[in-house]
């Protein structure tokens, strides 16, 4: 074999290498963490930014989309944190954990509820508990993605939440992401959620105000046997020229109930990728999301769902509302291993196209090695139903109002179906807010 060819480096790749070398001495963690960072960065750098010839990134060509790498965000100043404290005062209920520009800020955060231990990623890396480090490294599943590797290399901080076995956490735990950067900056947070056997809890992740121009976030979730875990992430704080990559790596034990819902409400380029693996038997995993896009926004949701345990039910439902010149991407791959008999997998994507300028790319994929399974997928793409619009108009609703009502119904019915009343109401409000701004905002958007 000839010597491996070194691909020419893009400006962004070169800048990332430089940023990594400069940041490495200051990034948290001991020698083990440093080794993880170095191997992770090489993994990323050898492959380079993912591009259209990498199958999982075909529709979101980062090499083309990411022209520059913004410098790493600096630690927030005391003044900006004080200002943030004021603004946060009226935030929603639950145990609040605040992450500013990728860094967990204890003094803005609430104490952990009973049965829960909360630490910053930095302190976990420093303490070096092998089980936590192994979990955070996520080498076996999901870790093959080079963008997840880049996150491991540069992870600045994050939160590590451990829920004790059997604990019932009534109030939601709410991670709030904020940014104080005025210039375009990059932030890399990596967090973990470990739900002990038989425990039940709800994690909400949400944006507070504008986010850093380039964010690469990773959440690693491990749900123990018989536990119940709901996860809600709402991404609404991105500017039109921003780039956001959100990875979630989930492993489920046996007889687990896991639900995750994501709202993408804006952003220049957004990529949400979920790697979910059913390790145990008889679990239920539900992944869902709504993307609301206008201007030249681009949102990609890519799933890899692996069934290794028997008798598990996987439900994946993703909806898109695309207006103006927006681009939606849905890629879902379900694999069923030989042992995973009686798997019940159903995947669906539904896109509402509101203008001729939009594009929706759908790529479902099934890879089944077991013989006794029921798996299926479907996709719909189209405009609003003319008959429904007419029906509403004959009842007196002007066209725009009829359209708004149907749009809200399309976008929000997953919210009603999957979430508890309080969280559902929060998200419905965000959806209504997006819809009411429709047409009001200028259509332009810069590419990142």
């Amino acid at each position, binding site marked *: 074999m000839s010597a491996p060819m070194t691909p020419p480096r893009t400006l962004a790749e070169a800048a990332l290498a430089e940023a990594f070398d400069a940041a490495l001495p200051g990034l948290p963690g001991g020698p083990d963490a440093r080794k993880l960072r170095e191997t992770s960065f090489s993994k990323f750098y050898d492959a380079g930014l993912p591009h259209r010839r990498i199958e999982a990134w075909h529709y979101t060509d980062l090499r083309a989309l990411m022209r520059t790498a913004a410098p790493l965000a600096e630690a927030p100043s005391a003044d900006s944190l004080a200002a943030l404290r004021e603004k946060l005062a009226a935030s929603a209920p639950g145990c609040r954990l605040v992450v500013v520009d990728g860094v967990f800020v204890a003094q803005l955060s609430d104490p952990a509820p009973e049965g829960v231990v909360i630490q910053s990623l930095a302190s976990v890396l420093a303490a070096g508990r092998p089980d936590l480090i192994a979990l955070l490294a996520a080498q076996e599943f999901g870790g093959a993605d080079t963008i997840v590797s880049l996150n491991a290399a540069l992870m600045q901080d994050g939160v590590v939440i451990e829920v004790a076995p059997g604990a019932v956490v009534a109030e939601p735990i709410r991670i709030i992401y904020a940014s104080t950067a005025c210039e375009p900056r990059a932030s890399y947070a990596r967090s973990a959620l470990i739900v002990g056997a038989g425990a039940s809890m709800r994690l909400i992740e949400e944006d507070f105000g504008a986010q850093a121009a380039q964010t690469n976030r990773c959440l690693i979730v491990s749900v123990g046997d018989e536990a119940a875990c709901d996860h809600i992430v709402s991404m609404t704080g991105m500017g039109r020229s921003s780039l956001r990559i959100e990875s979630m790596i989930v492993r489920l034990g046996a007889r687990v109930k896991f639900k995750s819902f994501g709202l993408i409400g804006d952003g220049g380029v957004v990529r949400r990728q979920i790697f979910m693996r059913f390790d145990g038997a008889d679990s239920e995993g539900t992944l869902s999301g709504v993307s609301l896009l206008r201007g030249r926004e681009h949102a990609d949701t890519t799933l890899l769902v692996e069934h290794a345990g028997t008798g598990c039910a996987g439900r994946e439902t993703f909806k898109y509302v695309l207006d103006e010149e927006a681009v939606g991407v849905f890629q879902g791959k379900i694999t069923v291993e030989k042992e995973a008999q009686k798997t019940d997998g159903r995947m669906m994507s539904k896109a509402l196209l509101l203008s001729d300028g939009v594009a929706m790319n759908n790529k479902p994929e099934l890879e089944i090695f077991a013989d006794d399974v029921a798996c299926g997928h479907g996709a719909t793409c189209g405009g609003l139903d003319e008959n429904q619009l007419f029906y509403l108009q*004959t009842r007196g609703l002007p*066209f725009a109002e009829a359209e708004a009502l149907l749009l809200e119904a399309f976008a929000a019915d997953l919210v009603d179906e999957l979430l508890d009343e309080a969280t559902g109401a929060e998200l419905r409000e965000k959806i209504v807010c997006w819809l009411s701004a429709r047409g009001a905002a200028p259509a332009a958007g810069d590419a990142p």
Partner: protein
Amino acid sequence: MLEIKNLTVSIDGRPILDDLNLTVRDGEVAAIMGPNGTGKSTLSYVIAGRKDYTVEAGEILLDGVDLLGLEPDVRAARGVFLAFQYPLEIPGVATMTFLKAALNAQRKQRGEEELSTPELMKRVKAGAEKLEIKPDMLKRALNVGFSGGEKKRMDILQMALLEPTLAILDETDSGLDIDALRVVAAGVNALRSPKRSFLIITHYQRLLDYIVPDTVHVMAKGRIAKTGGADLALELEKSGYRDYVADAA
């Protein structure tokens, strides 16, 4: 008063209504009967303002105003109501939310004040009770998972709440059981008033036993072929439409 003059309508170049003339006076209950595919639903859609049809000629006057240039919602605010042959399911829209939006949209267009939620609830509850609509149906998404008969009742409830001046009922009786037919007919009869006209499209004489019409029109081949009193319906029941479809166009 509804006056339809020389109405010719086609769809994709194919004529469906052919120089149709029809008048329904204030307070009049007019029934339209006629063979399948003759254009009855088309007529009701065109009056309500559906866009898929091409109006080649004619006018539709409601109280002297031509409806043809108006949007469906404007027609609704002017008093047109259509109970659909097949009411639509609207997933994700709670029935109560929809009723409130519809009522207030019409009030707004007429320059009236919006109804308060308690006042609306009161009206809806009273209307629902009369039509024997179970309260839990009002909490569900509009018409989703409703039985055929339940959907028809929901349409009549909307009619009662919206208080139209021209109510068109397109085969509201189809799919109703005997008891539901009585309930719906009572609902319609309660709304009969000197100010309100009804256009009732049906295939069955039985509905007209409960809602006794002032006039009965036979529609065939896209036009009104014969007009008579309530006894015309009884006659049709015996003879069928033979005489109306047989003759050359």
